[in-house]
């Protein structure tokens, strides 16, 4: 007996959160077991606010206004894609699951008030992927690592984006998806630190991998006491060589309720990772269910960390979906406060989403869920969170209802290196003709991704039946049937 490969953890948890137990009976004599303290004293029930209220939420809760930007038609709805900052105020959102298929394209967004200018398109990837990571390394460079196609097909491939083109670089030591990645600095050059993730067979990874352009992938030395294997955890950098790790799901479906500080160091040409277990800092144990999530996004903002979405063992109250916390290492304190949406701000789906911080904004793109057998929900908007408490900024924005987040139109890339987009000249070439005998031959032709004419096929009775008279009757004399497809790159993808 085989089981279907499964990778819908957040949806599974959301589904379980909505499990209801209903009791009904006839007659008046029966007494409900629910009334007699059966479930009444159960701590993990009905009112999540009671247990999740932050201690100083009274004085420190911030509210954010959120500007939804409705996605225009040509921008894809995506879930489990990855986003990164290309440069100040410009972000890309790549891959993920689209409405019809897995995606290998990138949408570009601009945040801020500058005039919108088109840019060269980010080239499509060879393989569509989801649950991958893209880490910005500054100066327009980024590393795309891992991901998967189907849940039992993890990818090890990595691609480096530079000068607006992808260059294949070293494969990860093992194919991984749902891993975490942050940018670090090693020996004064940028690198990417990867932790956790899920293997093709479903097991969680507890390995740490470090990538740099000069060394490829290496495994830093780690001590025996270190974080458990897990995937979809939250990792954030606090500085060039230090950061936090928390949350995530183990292969046995238990959530990791822990908080670690990692420190990367270099000595005599070797790299080391040190870990500090912060699970007894301040009120962490009381707050752990709010902080430790599965599939949450996080960004560092000034001195605090914002966590958005993901799922936990209990339903998050609406106002706790996005929270901010601050760690005071000196005083061994943890302060946490919910970021409440201000009035009139719609709720967004915070699963399969991606969040970044750029300029003074936080942007949330993508997101959506599938409720098994009942259909999918997609965020139809991208969201800009304005966390500024500065009244001057607020006042300024009231005056112009301008979109802060805009989609950047992408120029098609020139086919030949060195030619600018103004110089593309259409070439007429003959479409090759061929015969195929087997399904395998047909598949190989498809992989070539070039147009071809198939000769000698048995198309059935239509070759005799479809006379001009029949076609005239069925289609009509006036009907014009002509379809022209133009593609920007040689891969000629028609599905968008």
């Amino acid at each position, binding site marked *: 007996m085989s089981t279907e490969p499964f990778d819908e953890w957040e949806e599974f948890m959301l589904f379980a959160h909505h499990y209801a137990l*209903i*009791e009904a009976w*006839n007659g008046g004599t029966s007494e409900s077991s629910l009334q007699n303290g059966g479930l009444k004293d159960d701590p993990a029930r009905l009112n999540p606010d009671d247990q999740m209220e932050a201690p100083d939420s009274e004085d420190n809760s911030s509210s954010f206004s959120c500007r939804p930007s409705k996605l225009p038609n040509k921008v894809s709805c995506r879930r489990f894609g990855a986003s990164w900052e290309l440069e100040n105020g410009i972000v890309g959102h790549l891959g993920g699951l689209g409405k019809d298929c897995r995606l290998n394209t990138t949408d570009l967004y601009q945040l801020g008030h500058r005039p919108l200018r088109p840019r060269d398109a980010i080239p499509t990837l060879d393989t569509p992927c989801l649950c991958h990571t893209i880490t910005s390394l500054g100066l327009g460079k980024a590393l795309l690592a891992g991901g998967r196609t189907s849940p039992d097909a993890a990818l090890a491939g990595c691609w480096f984006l530079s000068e607006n083109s992808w260059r294949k670089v070293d494969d990860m030591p093992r194919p991984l998806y749902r891993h975490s990645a942050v940018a670090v600095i090693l020996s004064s050059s940028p690198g990417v630190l990867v932790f956790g993730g899920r293997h093709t067979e479903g097991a969680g990874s507890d390995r740490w991998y470090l990538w740099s352009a000069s060394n490829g992938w290496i495994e830093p030395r780690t001590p025996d006491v270190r974080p458990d294997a897990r995937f979809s955890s939250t990792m954030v950098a606090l500085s060039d060589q230090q950061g936090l790790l928390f949350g995530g799901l183990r292969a046995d479906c238990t959530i990791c309720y822990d908080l670690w500080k990692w420190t990367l160091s270099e000595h005599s040409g070797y790299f080391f990772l040190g870990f500090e277990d912060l699970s007894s800092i301040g009120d962490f144990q009381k707050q752990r269910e709010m902080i430790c999530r599965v599939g949450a996004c996080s960004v560092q903002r000034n001195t605090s960390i914002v966590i958005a979405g993901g799922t936990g063992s209990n339903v998050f109250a609406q106002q706790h979906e996005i929270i901010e916390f601050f760690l005071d290492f000196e005083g061994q304190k943890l302060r946490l406060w919910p970021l409440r949406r201000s009035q009139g701000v719609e709720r967004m789906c915070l699963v399969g989403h991606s969040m970044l911080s750029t300029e003074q904004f936080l942007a949330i793109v993508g997101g959506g869920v599938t409720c098994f*057998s009942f259909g999918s929900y997609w965020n139809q908007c991208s969201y800009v969170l304005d966390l500024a408490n500065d009244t001057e900024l607020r006042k300024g924005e009231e005056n112009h209802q301008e979109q802060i987040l805009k989609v950047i139109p992408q120029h098609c890339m020139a086919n030949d290196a060195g030619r600018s987009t103004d110089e593309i000249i259409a070439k007429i070439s003959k479409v090759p003709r061929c015969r195929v005998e087997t399904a395998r031959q047909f598949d190989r032709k498809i992989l070539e991704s070039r147009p071809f004419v198939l000769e000698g096929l048995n198309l059935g009775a239509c070759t005799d039946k479809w006379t001009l008279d029949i076609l005239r009757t069925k289609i009509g004399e006036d009907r014009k049937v002509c379809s022209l497809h133009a593609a920007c790159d040689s891969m000629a993808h028609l599905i968008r």
Partner: protein
Amino acid sequence: MQFVDVDYPELIERKCSVIRETPQLRQLINPSLGLDRVKTDSEIRLKSEQYLAIACDLQDLTRLESALWSEIDLTNSLILFTAEVSLTYMETPAADALITWTSQFDHGKW
């Protein structure tokens, strides 16, 4: 106490096959009827002291009722109804009809 299992004919047949082919389950359930795989139109596919497998689409309440009555004295029984991954997948009118049907029993409970 008897556990009455109601499901679509294809699914209940599959379940009965598993019971028939698994020695531990056969021993546990110890069916008096349905041990042999006999093609039958009868709704009762497997019967034992503590387990009854009924093949019936839950939208067909007449059939369900007659199948149950043929084996159980419904008026003098305490009945606990449970539904898991069944009602939610039915069309609302059919699910409503089923729930209404269950409410006719004086000693019924969900």
